């Protein structure tokens, strides 16, 4: 098997995913185009050498429809011979795109690829593509579908995480993210996004709220209590989890991932192709794995997917220096730490989506880049990147510096 190396990665800053977000005026294709331009230009890349561009996107309809990957490739004026494909593994789409791009290299079918993702949640709201999973009555009832927030609350209930516990986790995420920005640790990979006149619209993540305390967070209303109780979702969850007397709704907008706009790209290839283009490998992709878990609670995939990829790589959790698990909800990360016995000091060391936001299709590629930067800063070696995934899945990737 050929080794797949990471040469570079860039991402956009994450704009608030609302009408007042700084990236709201930027179309998804324009956002992804600027990211593709940046990774090309800063590496002096001859794009005709690319074998494929794989992009994750979770709501591939409207402005994000019609294969956004190929659309952006054309719009970024890449060489005509560069194809593009869009894929969807819900929240892990960005990481899955990197894995797929790497897999093409590892299998010897490609020499140089880009993986990444895009999601403009302010313009194409979550759920815009609807889907049979939750809206076809036969399917939704067969799998006891409930929205992911109910699953996060169910995890907290089963594990005994209190509102204080999850808020404390969220406050720490805010603190770490703010510190990382202050120290300039994100600067290397974040490219400013500009308007057509060349003015910078945004060059920093704008969702985070530095200085947030547990007391501030305690003021927020549980986000899923009303749908849980009035739309019947709690009842559905209890049909699958009858050991629970009632679901404790602890998640709020403050301890769940933020809704944001963003895009990311990761340049991947064989050692030889990099050498030919004057690129220096920064890390090797050791392995990756995805797994299916119970779709109702939905968010318990990270631990089993991590265990699966560790096993494939002949490693244990002790061999991993840094963990990066998408902060979809606080309870998801807390459950993972408990299951794999990972101390908080080794996971999400620069915060995560609670503070920074979760542009669904792009996040996986973003956090892979973030943890690679952090490995280099600390001069550490291995990292495991992981996301919980809609429909009850988990996707995990292990990288290792070279």
């Amino acid at each position, binding site marked *: 098997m050929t080794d797949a190396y990471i040469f570079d990665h860039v991402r956009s800053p994450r704009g608030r995913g609302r009408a007042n977000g700084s990236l709201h005026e930027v179309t998804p294709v324009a956002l992804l185009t600027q990211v593709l331009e940046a990774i090309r230009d800063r590496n002096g890349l001859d794009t005709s050498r690319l074998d494929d561009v794989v992009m994750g996107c979770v709501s591939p309809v409207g402005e994000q429809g019609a294969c956004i990957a190929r659309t952006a490739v054309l719009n970024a004026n890449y060489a005509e011979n560069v194809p593009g494909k869009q894929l969807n593994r819900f929240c892990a789409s960005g990481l899955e795109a990197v894995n797929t791009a790497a897999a093409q290299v590892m299998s010897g079918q490609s020499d140089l690829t880009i993986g990444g993702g895009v999601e403009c949640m302010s313009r194409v709201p979550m*759920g815009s593509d*609807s*889907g*049979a999973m*939750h*809206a*076809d*009555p*036969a399917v*939704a*009832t067969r799998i*006891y*579908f*409930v929205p992911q927030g109910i699953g996060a609350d169910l995890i907290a209930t089963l594990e005994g995480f209190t509102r204080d516990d999850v808020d404390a986790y969220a406050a720490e995420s805010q603190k770490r993210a703010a510190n990382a920005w202050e120290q300039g640790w994100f600067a290397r990979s974040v490219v400013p996004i500009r308007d057509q006149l060349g003015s910078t619209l945004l060059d920093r993540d704008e969702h985070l709220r530095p200085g947030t305390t547990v007391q501030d967070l305690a003021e927020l209303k549980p986000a899923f209590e009303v749908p849980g109780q009035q*739309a*019947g*979702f709690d*009842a*559905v969850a*209890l*049909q699958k989890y*009858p*050991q*629970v*007397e*009632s679901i404790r709704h602890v998640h709020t907008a403050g301890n769940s991932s933020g809704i944001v706009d963003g895009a990311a790209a990761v340049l991947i290839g064989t050692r030889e192709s990099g050498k030919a283009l004057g690129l220096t490998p920064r890390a090797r992709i050791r392995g990756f794995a995805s797994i299916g878990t119970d779709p109702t609670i939905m968010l318990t995939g990270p631990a089993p997917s991590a265990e699966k990829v560790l096993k494939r790589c002949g490693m244990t959790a002790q061999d991993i220096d840094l963990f990066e698990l998408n902060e979809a909800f606080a309870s998801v990360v807390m459950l993972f730490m408990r299951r794999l016995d990972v101390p908080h000091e080794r996971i999400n060391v620069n915060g995560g989506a609670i503070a920074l936001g979760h542009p669904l299709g792009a996040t996986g590629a973003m956090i892979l880049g973030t943890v690679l930067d952090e490995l280099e800063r600390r001069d550490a070696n291995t990292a495991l990147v992981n996301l919980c995934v809609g429909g009850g899945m988990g996707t995990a990737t292990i990288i290792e510096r070279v």
Partner: protein
Amino acid sequence: MKTIDYTVGGDGVAILTIDVKDKPMNVLTPDFLADIAAVADRLGADAKLKGAVITSGKSSFMAGADLKQIVDSFDEERDVAQVYGWCRTLQQALRRLETCGKPIAAAINGTALGGGLEVCLACHYRVVGDNPKTRLGQPEVSIGLIPGAGATQRLPRLIGIERALRLMTEGRHLRPAEALEAGIVDQLVPEGQEVEAARAWVLERGVAVQPWDQKGFKVPGGAGLMHPAAVQTFVVGSALLQKMTNHNYPAPLAIMSAVYEGTVLPIDKALDLESKYFTRMLMSTVARNMIRTLFLNKGAADKLVRRPKSPARRPVQKLGILGAGMMGAGIAYVSAQAGMQVVLLDTGLDKAEHGKDYSRKLLQERVDKGRMGADDARAVLDRIATTTDYAELAGCELVIEAVFEDRGIKAGVTGKAEAAIGADAIFASNTSTLPITSLAQASARPEQFIGIHFFSPVDKMPLVEVIVGEQTGEVAIAQALDYIQQIGKTPIVVNDSRGFYTSRVFGTYSREGITLLAEGVNPALIENVAKHAGMPVGPLAVTDEVSLELSYHVMRQTRKDLGDAYRPSAADAVVTRFVEEFDRRGKRFGKGFYDYPEGAKKHLWPGLAEHYPLAAEQPAPDEVRKRLLYVQALETVRCMEEGVLTHPADADIGSVFGWGFPPYTGGTLSFIETVGLAEFVREADRLARAYGERFAVPKTLRGMAERGETFYGNQRKAEQRSAA
């Protein structure tokens, strides 16, 4: 034509009058379907015709299918292709009508339900007469079916997906004005003018094409998953549906799927899709169970199928009630409401008045809600006389005692009442626990002594259990049944036994739940699984509601009465501890298995975890479910074996309407038939080995399983034998 009178007037409008002979209401018979198809051809072929009006020759317009025929078909050899073929015939007859090329208006001159309303929906225009008794709706879901003559497709195309879904999944009946508002009918006219209004539409405004057959038609409000509103309807609808059905009832989901998939199809394909879903429902035992128990057998019970032929019907004019506690007060209310003079007697006038207060409160609520006039309410109250004097009972045809469950007290009031009432009056006890035969010992005329067991709260619970003691005569049975029919409740008739039928079997449910707790099973699991199995309340919650104190007293009384024959249950020790050690006596006392915090939802008592620590290994939910349902079914079989029950219908009706055994099962015995007797016996044997004697299979059941018999099959054979 056998079912439709076809008359053409001078104005060129055909008047089609439906009159299905030998049926009290018009139903969708094969003859009717053939006639509708023939009518469609005739209308299309006659160039001089301007159009047609369909109406009914009976006081109601039309009901749905012939349900008895559907239930009977379960005993016949039939396959999916056959049933589907029948469903298509139904669809195609109506489709031919709406595409015959002539405008057709329905003149709805009375109730049109199920298939009856679907005939109207296949017309191009609907006029309904403003009759307060008229009801329109698609109630199929309440008997485990879905509309099968086009409503799942025509209704959403007419009024939008969300409103159509609500109508069909709730099975609600609409009054004429509500139907107009909902958009199901086009015009509301004074009663009797339906045909004229319909004829006027045909002549002046008639359109022979349905909206969904017109070019560019769109479902109102949108259909398909590219419509955000439709998405929301189906996402939330699927969750609420599961909350309602707990995955036990297939029909609501079939309705939702038929609408979800069908509303993006052209109408012909959509109707075919409905037929496929309808076929599946017709093949499902849930439909058989629900139609048989909730409709046919309940209907027969309401018509007093168990009543002896003689004596002739004697309505109660004057009713005596001894004891104005909760039960007595409730009995007084329902009886006065039904028009009887009621004498409510207690040891003190204040107590009797307190009992009457219950009626005052309920009547006031009805007046406040506009359901009753103040004068009518006063008339009901005036019919309830309170007293302490037994002499006032003179002239009562029936006296019901509802005093404290104590033999001595009951014997005392029996004697005093019998001294005051006429020689032909019947005396009934509303005991829920004491055998009637033993109470009758206090009576000077035990053949006129009977048990009439009400459920609490009396005004809400639909069932009444009549208990026949060893000496009870037919006159007493007839009188009890006549009375129950007067108050509009459903009777079952059982023979005497401790706990009779309902209390006896229901007791096994709460005891099994408490036994599970004693074994260290997670109490949330016990309660949730019970509810998911379809029981209205979990076994621990219901014990709280009945009160642990009462369970404690009944247990001690039973043990005293039975002596060595008493079989202790693991639940006994739990109940004893809760009363004696924890002083947690039930909901009424503010604490039991649950805590009842003021202004907040009840929750399981945290102390349970300490006193009944969770076993390391927890049973699968399915095992808990089986134990809770099987234990009730097996005790019912014992009641059949001992002759406490004489008819499977009484067992099923009593279980569903008495204590809420899940309707999808059809009742405790239909449940066994649904599982299959052989499979049920196998599982019960396994449960008996694992958990004890209470799951032991009664001999009769084992024999029936071996011979391939069923309860209803044997009942039918017995009836055929006695008829021959």
